[in-house]
């Protein structure tokens, strides 16, 4: 009953948005809700914190990572869980590292094997192709994303395939594969739980290994209730995962074709290797008769003995687990099946020619650099507005588009933790710094930074002017009102206090105290 003095629209509530239609847990007696003791008189629900969305991507304009990260930080439940969860992965990785005496030797071997293979890439790709063909695998080559998508579409068309199940692949993200397939009327189903969540939410993966790590269970419950018909009020993780399994299984059984990526390729045997924890790549590859694997050309290794080094490092670095639950080696089609491999360049051969950056091709996509990065952990992977986020993204993304990703190399404190945890010893933080220089040289750096740097350049080339300016700035900082120091043009004043300016510059102190002495 609503009494006359309570406005009907709010139900007498201070925060009408908290009103729930009904509460299945309430105790009812004679058709009325009991509200004795601490019981509320009306059903209430605490609204889950809405998920902050990623960077606003506007065509070719530079992505504002800082703006999107700011929104993620402003959602404290999301930010805390994300930070904690990824730091836990980092700590599990350390535990594994300490359990293996030869860890550092494995990292050095992995780096050396990759550098050798990349400097002989043409030879090993040729060897892989020959051996894979001999095993009955169809090998295709794609210069770029568009050609990759067309080749896969062509294979599907030849088989009359209309539905495709696939496992997670960063390469297919890079190629905008799902969007392309939707445009040609092929139904794609992602089979990795995290990637399926992201597909259903029409959102990119935020992490190379755990694609939905930025979401809370409440976000998933809301999403699944809209898309696969789960109970919107049930946020139990076991329930949500089981509902997804049950919803996806029929799609797996009925699919016309399956697709996987590959973590590694072995030239000597013509094998490609896929690592998952869910077994979803093995379902995608082994249930339909047609299996297509999309593989970046940098994934290649010479021989099986080299693969051992990488398998030992991959999951330990990624998740702090000794091995992925499933590590599957595909050397040829199964009886009655057909197997295709699409080798994709999409900028990789060109990257090989970048003297300072070619070693980024050593990356095995473990995500360790993301898990350890304070900027990534606090800001979320979608803040980068690019296929690859975190430290590795900062050095790969600009090779795809220098203007669009010109801000990204600044999303780093250059603390070097990424370099320290990288299982293939990529000097990530040094490359981040080098990209800043390259982007300035190529005039891709934003105006505010450019103006500041130009002014700094003029000052730094004139010692007298520099000293006068520093003294004036110190005096000014001590007396300027806050709104002049903390404004949009001064990034140093965002989210932190500018340090107190010294009363005296070093130069004037030296002049006063040591000036007379030699």
């Amino acid at each position, binding site marked *: 009953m609503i009494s006359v003095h309570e406005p009907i629209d709010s139900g007498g509530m201070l925060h009408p948005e908290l009103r729930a239609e009904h509460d299945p847990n309430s105790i009812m007696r004679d058709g009325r809700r009991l509200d004795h003791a601490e019981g509320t008189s009306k059903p209430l629900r605490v609204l889950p914190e809405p998920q902050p969305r990623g960077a606003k991507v506007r065509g070719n304009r530079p992505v504002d990572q800082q703006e999107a990260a700011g929104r993620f930080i402003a959602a404290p439940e999301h930010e805390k869980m994300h930070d904690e969860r990824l730091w836990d992965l980092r700590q599990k990785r350390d535990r594994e590292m300490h359990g293996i005496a030869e860890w550092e030797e494995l990292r050095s*071997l992995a780096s*050396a094997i990759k550098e050798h293979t990349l*400097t002989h890439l*043409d030879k090993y790709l040729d060897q892989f*192709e020959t051996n894979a063909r001999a095993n009955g695998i169809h090998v295709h080559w794609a210069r770029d994303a568009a050609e990759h998508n067309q080749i896969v579409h062509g294979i599907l068309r030849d088989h009359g395939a209309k539905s495709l199940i696939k496992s997670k692949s960063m390469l297919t993200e890079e190629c905008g594969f799902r969007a392309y397939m939707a445009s040609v009327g092929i139904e794609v189903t992602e089979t990795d739980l995290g990637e399926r969540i992201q597909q259903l939410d029409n959102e990119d993966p935020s992490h190379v290994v755990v694609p939905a790590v930025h979401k809370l269970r409440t976000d998933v419950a809301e999403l699944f209730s809209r898309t696969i018909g789960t109970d919107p009020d049930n946020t139990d*993780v076991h329930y949500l995962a089981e509902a997804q399994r049950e919803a996806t299984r029929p799609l797996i059984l009925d699919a016309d074709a399956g697709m996987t990526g590959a973590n590694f390729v072995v030239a000597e045997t013509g094998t490609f290797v896929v690592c998952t924890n869910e077994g979803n790549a093995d379902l995608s590859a082994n249930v339909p008769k047609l299996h297509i694997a999309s593989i970046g050309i940098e994934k290649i290794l010479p021989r099986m003995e080299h693969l051992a080094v990488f398998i030992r490092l991959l999951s330990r670095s990624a998740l702090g687990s000794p091995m992925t*639950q499933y590590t599957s080696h595909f050397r040829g089609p199964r009886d009655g099946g057909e197997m295709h491999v699409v080798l994709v360049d999409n900028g990789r051969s060109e990257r090989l020619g970048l003297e300072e950056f070619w070693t980024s091709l050593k990356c095995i996509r473990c995500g360790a650099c993301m898990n350890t990065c304070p900027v990534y952990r606090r800001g979320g992977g979608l803040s980068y507005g690019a296929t690859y986020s975190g430290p590795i993204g900062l050095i790969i993304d600009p090779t795809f588009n220098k203007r669009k990703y010109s801000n990204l190399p600044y999303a780093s404190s250059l603390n070097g933790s990424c370099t320290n945890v990288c299982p293939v010893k990529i000097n990530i933080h040094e490359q981040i710094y080098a990209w800043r220089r390259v982007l300035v040289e190529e005039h891709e750096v934003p105006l505010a930074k450019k103006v500041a740097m130009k002014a700094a350049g003029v000052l730094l080339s004139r010692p007298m002017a520099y000293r006068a300016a520093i003294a004036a700035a110190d005096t000014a900082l001590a007396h300027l009102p806050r709104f002049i120091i903390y404004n949009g043009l001064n990034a140093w004043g965002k989210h932190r206090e500018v340090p107190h300016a010294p009363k005296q510059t070093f130069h004037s102190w030296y002049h006063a105290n040591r000036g007379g002495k030699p």
Partner: protein
Amino acid sequence: MSSRDDILASIRANLPRVDRSLPDVPLFDADPPVSLLSAFKENLHRMGGMFLDPPSSGDILVPIRIIIAGAKIVCSTVPEIAGNRDIAGVDASRDLADVDFAIVRASFAVAETGSLLLTDADLHVNAVAYLAQHLIVLLDPTDIVVNLHHAYRRPDFRDRHYASFHSGPSATADIEGVLIHGAQGVRSLSVLPVARATDDPITQ
């Protein structure tokens, strides 16, 4: 020019002009565990798998018989124990969708990671190891290698078209890091140590 030739030409034009030799990979086996079986068992447990202790006497398959007692569909590819779904009669993978338990034999196991290698020869139909709700694996205790360096020297990786390391059951923690078994593949993985029968047709 074909895409293949284009890509290879672009690679050759961009190859870094540095000399990087291919290192030899040691076997890292100087300090092996006292018992490979114990190490395997411990690591299998860490990965969420279950090790079935064989009875000290009598029918060695009793632990499996207990597990599958209530199951409707059991598909076995091993001669030691019979199921009620004949893998030889399976035309398409999807015919295995209703299997409760699959029973297979591992080619070998890895102590370091608690992994079992299942090949297309072990599985007959690869999908059986993923579509079944639960997977039971027989392992000959003499088929355990110390680590992955030894594992990758095995002939299976050169002979078989499909070979997969299983280290525990299907798992995910994609929602808030909560570990779930049976994400998409099998909900459980159990391993029973059983020596190979000398006339085991699979190994011939």
